[in-house]
């Protein structure tokens, strides 16, 4: 069997149903083999970077690894930002790149790039396949590594001739994903620490969602009565309409969150990596509280701050083991002071069951604080890398994965980075609502320039875009509100659309 067909077989073994790819010389054999294959659908975006973001949107909406494929050279280098994004946000992904034939490797052939070397530091692991005999097992390893432990992207680079050479295909069942189990000693120490604390605060990160542990976390939070805060990556890990929910740590936390931090004697961080933004909150408002760190990745323990105590393991297993060991506490509530932006809550009200994606910038921070997300995998944002242009292709991936309406919230700056993807959404008739908050500038950058550079705004003016004309040109229904005026009527209009719809909100903020 040819290498390309072996790849298809392994993708079928792994129950892959969707591949995002962009054609090019060295990957054509694979695309040809994927044509009309039962159970696998091929999608393409306008640019390889968007293929990776779409694959990430797919992965974060479903929990299954996203699959992306691209050709050698520029096709491969265009994956870099998307892989880095997935790496920072621990998203399971498998990227397959074609490369020049084996005998030309290292000779600077046309469209040759050492993508193996380039992506080494932005993938969880990567491979270059040097023989068709090792192809199947390498690809299987890629899926196992991507989906095991702390998840992440894995790249498999395949020289062109290997797609066309033959080897015997031996079927295999996918190996069980391996998740580290917590150690009893660490669990007992953690339980004692919790029992001795009187005002614990529970902070949830993306690890809760990655481990499908939201229900366990809910039971845990209810038993301990703790106030609950989340990181941006943790949005959806705890229902925001719950009275124990307080808001976000990181950028611009609300007064209740800060009060809870000041009161707290034990900060339980679950599935998060104590980013520098979060540490700033802790140092300022709770410099003396004890830290209990629950995470799947041992290297995160003590990386950014010394943890008083830690349990390493898959969060689902950690919480399941920890629950019977801790005593219940009376619930503690703080005033419901989450300051939500009404523009965003109105949009959420119109699409309460949708999956939300965002771009990066001022609108993203508002979305993080304002959307009352209640379910995991319903909020997808570029957390660690902060990639402008992530949202719309991620929305495409999430819409393909779930079949649900996906609302992408964008600023006009980010939209200028990926607007051609609107045509992809139209091409596949996806249920995507594109919202652009148009303030004709890079709002977050302007804020930084106001704060640190005496208001000198450099390169922050965005191109003047006639968005209604653009929407019409792409065949997308368009509605507009200025400063939220008439927004309910605009949203009613938008809700009538079954496919792609464009909402522009003109604003000065």
């Amino acid at each position: 069997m040819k290498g390309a067909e072996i790849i298809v077989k392994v993708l079928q073994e792994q129950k892959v149903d969707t591949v995002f790819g962009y054609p090019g010389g060295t990957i054509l054999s694979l695309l040809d083999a994927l044509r009309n294959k039962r159970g696998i659908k091929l999608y393409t975006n306008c640019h390889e970077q968007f293929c990776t973001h779409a694959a990430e949107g797919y992965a974060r909406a479903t929990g299954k690894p996203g699959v992306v494929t691209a050709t050698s050279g520029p096709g491969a280098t265009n994956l870099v930002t998307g892989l880095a994004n997935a790496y920072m946000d621990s998203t399971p992904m498998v990227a397959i790149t074609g490369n020049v034939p084996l005998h030309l490797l290292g000779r600077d052939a046309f469209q040759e790039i050492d993508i193996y070397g380039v992506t080494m530091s932005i993938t969880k692991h990567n491979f270059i396949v040097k023989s068709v005999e090792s192809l199947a097992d390498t690809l299987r390893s890629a899926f196992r590594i991507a989906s095991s432990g702390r998840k992440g992207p894995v790249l498999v680079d395949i020289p062109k001739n290997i797609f066309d050479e033959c080897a015997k295909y031996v079927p295999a069942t996918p190996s069980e994903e391996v998740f580290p189990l917590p150690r009893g000693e660490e669990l007992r120490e953690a339980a004692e620490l919790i029992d001795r604390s009187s005002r614990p605060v529970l902070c949830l990160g993306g690890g809760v969602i990655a481990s499908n542990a939201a229900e366990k976390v809910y039971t845990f939070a209810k038993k301990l009565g703790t106030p609950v805060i989340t990181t941006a990556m943790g949005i959806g890990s705890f229902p925001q309409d719950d009275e124990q929910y307080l808001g976000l740590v990181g950028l611009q936390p609300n007064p209740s969150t800060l009060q809870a931090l000041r009161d707290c004697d034990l900060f339980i961080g679950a599935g998060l990596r104590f980013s520098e933004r979060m540490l700033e909150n802790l140092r300022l408002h709770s410099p003396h509280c004890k830290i209990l760190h629950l995470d799947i990745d041992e290297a995160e323990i003590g990386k950014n701050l010394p943890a008083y105590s830690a349990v390493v393991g898959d969060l689902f297993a950690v919480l399941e083991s920890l629950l019977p060991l801790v005593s219940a506490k009376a619930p503690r509530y703080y005033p419901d002071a989450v300051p939500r932006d009404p523009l965003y809550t109105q949009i959420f009200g119109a699409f309460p069951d949708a999956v939300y994606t965002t771009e990066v910038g001022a609108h993203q921070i508002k979305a993080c604080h304002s959307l009352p997300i209640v379910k995991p995998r319903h909020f997808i944002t570029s957390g660690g890398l902060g990639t402008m242009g992530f949202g719309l292709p991620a929305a495409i991936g999430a819409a393909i994965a779930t079949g649900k309406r996906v609302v992408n919230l964008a600023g006009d700056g980010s939209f200028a980075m990926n607007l051609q993807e609107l045509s992809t959404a139209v091409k596949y008739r996806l249920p995507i609502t594109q919202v652009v908050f148009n303030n004709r500038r890079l709002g977050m950058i302007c804020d930084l320039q106001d704060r640190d550079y005496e208001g000198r705004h450099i390169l922050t003016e965005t191109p003047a875009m006639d968005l209604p004309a653009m929407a019409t040109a792409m065949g997308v229904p368009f509605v507009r509100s200025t400063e939220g005026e008439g927004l309910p009527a605009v949203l009613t209009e938008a809700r009538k659309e079954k496919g792609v719809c464009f909402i522009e909100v003109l604003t000065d903020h």
Partner: protein
Amino acid sequence: MEQIHVLSVFVNNCVGVLTRISGLFARRGYNIKSLTVGETENPAVSRMTIECIGDAQIITQIKSQLRKVVDVISVEELKADAVCRELFLVKVRANDTNRTAVMGVAEIYRARPLDVTPETLVFEICGDRSKLESFFEMMKTYGIVEIARTGVTAMDRG
């Protein structure tokens, strides 16, 4: 307190593994004093000996980060009394007037002469850090032309 720690890192003997490990140290800003690598009794496995500098927290981080590398099989920190050896090749200025003196000093350190010319001597010397550094200091007084060090390789006793 910053100290030198010696790690034995067993890795899959495959393409790029050295780049992965050295890249990890470079990217995260960890200090390497020396790194040596060679096959073990099992040709599929290589053993790296890494001398790194850091306080306890950094060394713990280094070990955890190394364990995350897919091609790393195991990471061990060697004990303070581990057997550590390094080999130096040292080319020293030595002519008719001082050759005997240089040879005499080398004898004390059990350094072996490998090459002699009218103007130079090349010695091979193997040993632990203190012996090699002491030899190096002595040879400096005669004038060192060049030096090549292998880096430390080491294992625990017993």
